[in-house]
């Protein structure tokens, strides 16, 4: 069955997008990403260390941009201007690459997004030709406005970044999904495989996660679990679940032919 994720006119087999931070080393990063089956991987843009590490391997040596679709992010940005500046540098760094993850944070303690700055940055980036996947609060009106600005995907949080609290407001996510004409991906908050499956069963087009894999006891094994959970959740969504009812007078075994 062909069930591809389409973002900004490009299609992907995997609906699991993963971050590349918080791993022990690059080898573990690579092993976990391979186990996850992810095709899109997020990276951060940071100042290069000058001088002391000329021959040191870099993330790009382990995850060649030819093998993956890079999704540069604006993690750590607290204003629209900083986010736009960061992604323009990312575009130069990645030879004109247009697909980006916009996130503008509002509070260093909770990492909750600042939606006013996010919307301001999204307008500039879309106008500037970027394909913007945008991290946002789970507010259906904000998500719709980001779509109307021209973002190519909205990525509401399931719960706060790095919290592992799972899907805290499935109702809002359902409203966002029902109203959207662009892919809705859950970004942030997934803690374990069942969270990923639940998000996909709600009808999310995909999930972006980092900490749930990187901070697991065995990141490579969790990456594999997440791959299966996303696939399972997607198939369950497509299959359509049976209706819930308090009890059923219809047992699975025949009522006729009993020996009593």
């Amino acid at each position, binding site marked *: 069955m062909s069930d591809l994720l389409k973002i900004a006119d490009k299609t992907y087999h995997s609906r699991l997008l993963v*971050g*590349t*931070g*918080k*791993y022990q080393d690059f080898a573990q*990063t690579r092993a976990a990403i391979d186990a996850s089956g992810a095709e899109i991987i*997020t*990276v*951060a*843009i*940071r*100042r*290069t260390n*000058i*001088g002391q590490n*000329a021959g040191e391997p*870099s*993330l*790009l040596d382990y995850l060649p*941009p030819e093998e993956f679709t*890079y999704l*540069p*992010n604006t*993690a750590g940005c607290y204003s629209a201007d900083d986010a736009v*500046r960061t992604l*323009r*540098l*990312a575009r*130069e*760094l*990645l030879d004109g690459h247009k697909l980006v993850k916009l996130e503008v944070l509002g509070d260093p303690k909770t990492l909750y997004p600042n939606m006013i700055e996010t919307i301001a940055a999204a307008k500039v980036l879309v106008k500037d030709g970027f394909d913007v996947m945008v991290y946002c609060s789970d507010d259906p009106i904000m998500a719709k406005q980001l779509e109307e600005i021209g973002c190519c995907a909205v990525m509401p949080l399931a719960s706060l*970044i790095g919290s592992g609290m799972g899907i805290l407001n499935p109702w809002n996510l359902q409203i966002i999904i029902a109203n959207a004409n662009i892919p809705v991906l859950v970004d*942030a908050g997934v803690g374990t495989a069942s969270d990923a499956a639940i998000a996909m069963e709600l009808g999310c087009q995909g999930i*972006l*996660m*980092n*900490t749930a894999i990187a901070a697991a006891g065995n990141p490579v094994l969790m990456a594999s679990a997440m791959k299966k959970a996303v696939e399972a959740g997607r198939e369950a969504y497509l299959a359509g679940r049976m209706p819930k009812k308090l009890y059923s007078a219809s047992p699975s075994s025949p009522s006729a032919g009993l020996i009593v």
Partner: protein
Amino acid sequence: MQLIINGKPRDFDSAGFSVAHLVSTLALEGKRLAIECNGEIVPRSQFAEKQLMDGDKLEIVGAVGGG
């Protein structure tokens, strides 16, 4: 001359050299990076011609692990 590179002042014996020269001096040749000079991106294609001046503020960035 002095350049401010990634927020830190750095002194150079010579003056008036190009971004390409700076990249080679810092042993960053062949690395995937992006450079901003005084808030403006310097495209890689212009590294050789873009001359640096005393007091220029440079940001040299690369991709690192992140979510």
